[in-house]
C-alpha cells in the first residue's frame, strides 16, 4: 500500500507542546469546502469500490440470514454447544460486538465532555459503528434462545400465566442495558445528524432527495435559539451516555461475574470489560477510518494526528487489559482457592492454551509498538495492528467463556468446537455490520460537518483562532 507515504506536514501541526493550539483540520479549508468534501460521497454516483465492498458485505449478510433461518428451523443442536459448555461462539460474538460499539460512545460522549475537539472528525462514523455493532450484538442472544418466538418473555408484558421476568437476573439486566444503549445511541446519533441533514436538504438537486432529507431534518434552520437548545441537549446526552456506556459493559460482565463459576466470579470484571471494550472499539474505528478517509478523500479532516491520538488510546487501554490479565492470575493465587487457581493455570496451559496465547499476543504485545512515534504514524502498521487487536479481543471473550469446559468435576469435563454453522454465522454478522456501514457511507454524511466547521480557526468569532479574523465587539 502506498498509503504509508504521509505527505510531510509542518511540525506545528503536531501537539508536542500541549499548550499550543492544534490545527485540527489540515489544508486551510473554507466552510464551503468542508461541506463539499463531506457531501461528495453522498451526492456523487457510487464508486466501483463502493459497489464491490457493498456486494461482498451483502453476500455475507445473505449467509447470516441463511444460518439464522437454518437455526430457527432446526434448533441450536446444529451448534457445537454441549454440557458443560452451554455458551460458545454466540455469547463470544455478543460480547465482542457490544464491546466494539463502545468506542463510538466513548468518542462521541466522553471525549466531548473532556473537550477533546479532535473527536469531531471521527465521531459521526464512530457513532454509526456503535449502532451497527449493537445491532449485530443483539442478534446473538436473540438467536441463542433457540425458540426466538418466545423472546417476548424477556420483557415485562402482562400475560395469561401472570408471571413476570426475573429482575434479579443479570441476563435480564442485559436486555434492559443493551436495549437502552441501542436506543440512546440512535437518539444521540440522530440528534447530531439533524443540522447535517439540513445541509443535505439545502443542497438537494432532486425532488426526492429534498423531500427525504427535508423530512429527516424536520425543518432545522440553524437559528441561535435552535443551536442553544441543541447544544444543551447534546451536552446532556453526552453526560448521560458516559455513565451509560460504563454501565452497559459492566452489566455485560455481570453475566459472568454474578455467577459462581471459577474464573468468572470476580470483581475486576466490570472495569476490565469496559477497558477491553474501548480497546477493541478503537481498533475497529481505526480499521474503518483508515479505509474511509483514503477512499473518500477526507485525509485533511481525519488527519494523521487523529490516527496518532487513537493509537495512543489503544496503547493505554491495551495496557489496562494486560494489567487485568495479570491481576486475574495474581488474585487467583492470592485467594488460595483451588478451583480459581486451576482455572487460570488451565487457561494458559490447558486445552485452550492456543486461544489464550493468541489473546496475549494480540492484546498485550501488539499495542506495545505504539510506544514509537513512527509506528503510531504509519498507516500499514496501524492497519494491521487494529485488525490483530480485534482478533485478540474476540479471543479474550472466547477464553473467558471456555472456562466452562473444565468445571468442578473431571467427570463432567468437555471440549467445545464450533460447527461450520457457528463460523458462518460469525462471518455473516460481519456482513450485516458492513452492509449497514456501506449504506451509511452512501446516504449520510460520514463526518459531522457542523462540528468540524466549528473547530476551523475562522469559526472563532473572537479572533483567537489562527485565521486572524478580527475580534468582534464585546457583547
Amino acid at each position: 500500500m502506498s498509503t504509508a507515504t504521509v505527505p510531510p506536514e509542518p511540525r506545528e501541526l503536531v501537539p508536542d507542546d500541549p499548550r499550543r493550539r492544534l490545527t485540527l483540520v489540515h489544508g486551510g479549508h473554507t466552510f464551503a469546502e468542508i461541506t463539499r468534501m463531506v457531501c461528495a460521497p453522498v451526492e456523487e454516483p457510487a464508486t466501483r469500490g463502493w459497489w464491490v465492498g457493498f456486494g461482498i458485505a451483502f453476500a455475507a449478510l445473505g449467509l447470516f440470514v441463511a444460518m439464522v433461518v437454518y437455526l430457527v428451523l432446526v434448533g441450536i443442536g446444529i451448534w457445537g454447544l454441549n454440557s458443560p459448555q452451554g455458551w460458545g461462539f454466540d455469547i463470544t460474538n455478543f460480547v465482542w460486538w457490544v464491546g466494539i460499539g463502545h468506542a463510538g460512545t466513548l468518542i462521541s460522549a466522553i471525549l466531548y465532555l473532556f473537550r477533546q475537539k479532535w473527536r469531531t472528525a471521527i465521531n459521526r462514523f464512530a457513532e454509526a459503528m456503535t449502532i451497527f455493532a449493537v445491532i449485530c450484538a443483539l442478534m446473538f442472544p436473540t438467536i441463542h434462545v433457540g425458540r426466538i418466538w418466545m423472546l417476548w418473555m424477556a420483557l415485562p408484558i402482562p400475560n395469561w400465566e401472570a408471571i413476570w421476568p426475573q429482575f434479579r437476573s443479570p441476563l435480564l439486566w442485559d436486555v434492559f442495558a443493551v436495549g437502552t444503549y441501542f436506543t440512546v445511541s440512535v437518539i444521540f446519533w440522530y440528534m447530531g445528524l439533524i443540522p447535517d441533514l439540513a445541509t443535505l436538504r439545502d443542497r438537494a438537486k432532486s425532488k426526492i432527495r429534498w423531500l427525504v432529507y427535508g423530512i429527516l431534518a424536520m425543518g432545522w434552520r440553524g437559528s441561535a435559539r435552535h443551536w442553544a437548545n441543541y447544544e444543551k441537549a447534546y451536552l446532556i446526552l453526552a453526560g448521560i451516555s458516559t455513565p451509560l456506556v460504563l454501565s452497559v459493559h459492566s452489566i455485560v460482565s455481570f453475566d459472568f461475574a454474578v455467577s459462581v463459576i471459577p474464573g468468572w466470579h470476580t470483581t475486576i470484571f466490570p472495569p476490565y470489560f469496559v477497558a477491553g471494550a474501548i480497546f477493541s472499539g478503537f481498533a475497529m474505528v481505526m480499521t474503518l477510518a483508515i479505509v474511509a478517509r483514503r477512499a473518500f478523500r477526507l485525509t485533511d479532516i481525519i488527519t494523521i494526528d487523529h490516527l496518532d491520538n487513537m493509537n495512543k488510546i489503544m496503547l493505554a487501554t491495551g495496557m489496562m487489559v494486560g494489567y487485568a490479565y495479570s491481576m486475574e492470575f495474581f488474585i487467583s493465587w492470592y485467594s488460595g482457592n483451588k478451583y480459581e487457581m486451576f482455572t487460570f493455570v488451565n487457561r494458559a496451559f490447558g486445552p485452550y492454551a492456543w486461544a489464550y496465547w493468541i489473546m496475549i499476543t494480540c492484546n498485550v504485545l501488539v499495542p506495545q509498538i505504539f510506544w514509537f512515534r513512527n509506528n503510531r504514524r504509519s498507516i500499514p502498521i496501524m492497519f494491521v495492528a487494529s485488525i490483530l487487536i480485534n482478533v485478540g479481543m474476540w479471543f479474550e471473550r472466547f477464553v473467558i467463556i471456555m472456562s466452562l469446559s473444565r468445571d468442578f468435576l473431571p467427570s463432567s469435563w468437555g471440549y467445545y468446537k464450533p460447527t461450520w454453522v457457528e463460523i458462518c454465522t460469525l462471518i455473516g454478522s460481519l456482513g450485516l455490520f458492513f452492509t449497514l456501514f456501506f449504506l451509511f457511507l452512501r446516504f449520510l454524511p460520514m463526518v459531522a460537518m457542523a462540528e468540524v466547521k466549528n473547530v476551523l480557526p475562522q469559526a472563532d468569532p473572537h479572533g483567537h483562532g489562527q485565521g486572524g479574523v478580527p475580534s468582534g465587539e464585546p457583547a
Partner: protein
Amino acid sequence: MSDKPKARPAPVAPYGVMAEFVTPAELLRAAGRLRARGYKNIEAYSPFPIHGLDTALGHGGSKIPWIVLGGAVLGASSGLLLQWWTSAVSYPIKVGGKPYFSVPAFVPITFELGVLFSAFAALLGMLALNRLPQPYHPVFNHTHFHRATDDRFFLAVESVDPMFNVERAERDLSDAGGQNIEVVQA
C-alpha cells in the same frame, strides 16, 4: 448576487428583514450593534453554533436541563416501581433467599430506565423548544438562505419588533455590514 438592497413594493405584513454575513465575527458584531440600537426581536442563523451569540442577541438560557431532569426522575421511578410491583406484589417468588424487594439487584434496571427516559426527554425537549418539526418557515424565503447550512450567516430583524420599520431595518443591517438584504414574506 446583487449587493444592493432590493427595491420592492412595501409588503403588507412581512416576516422581517434579513441580511447575509460572510464570517461569524461579522455576524456577532452586527448582532451586538442592532441590540445596542434597541432592537428586541432579532434572530441569527448560522451553519454551526457561535460562541457568545446568545448573549449578543439577548437570549436567555435553555430550559432543556429541567426537561431532562423530569425524564430522569420519571424513568428511574417507573423502573423501580415496575420491579417492586412485579417482584414483590403481583407474583412474589423467593429466589436465592433474597427479599422480594431486592434493592441492590434492582439498581441496574432503575438506572437504565432513568437514562432511557432522559435521552428521550433531551431529544423531544430540544425538538419541542425549537418548534420542530416545522416544514415551512418564512426565513427560507431569503434567496440565499440555502447557504445558512453551508457557509453563510444571517441576521433577521423580525416585524414583531416594536421598533420594526422596513427602511430602518434595512439601513441598520446595511450599516452593520450586512449584504443581500431582503424583506422576507411571512
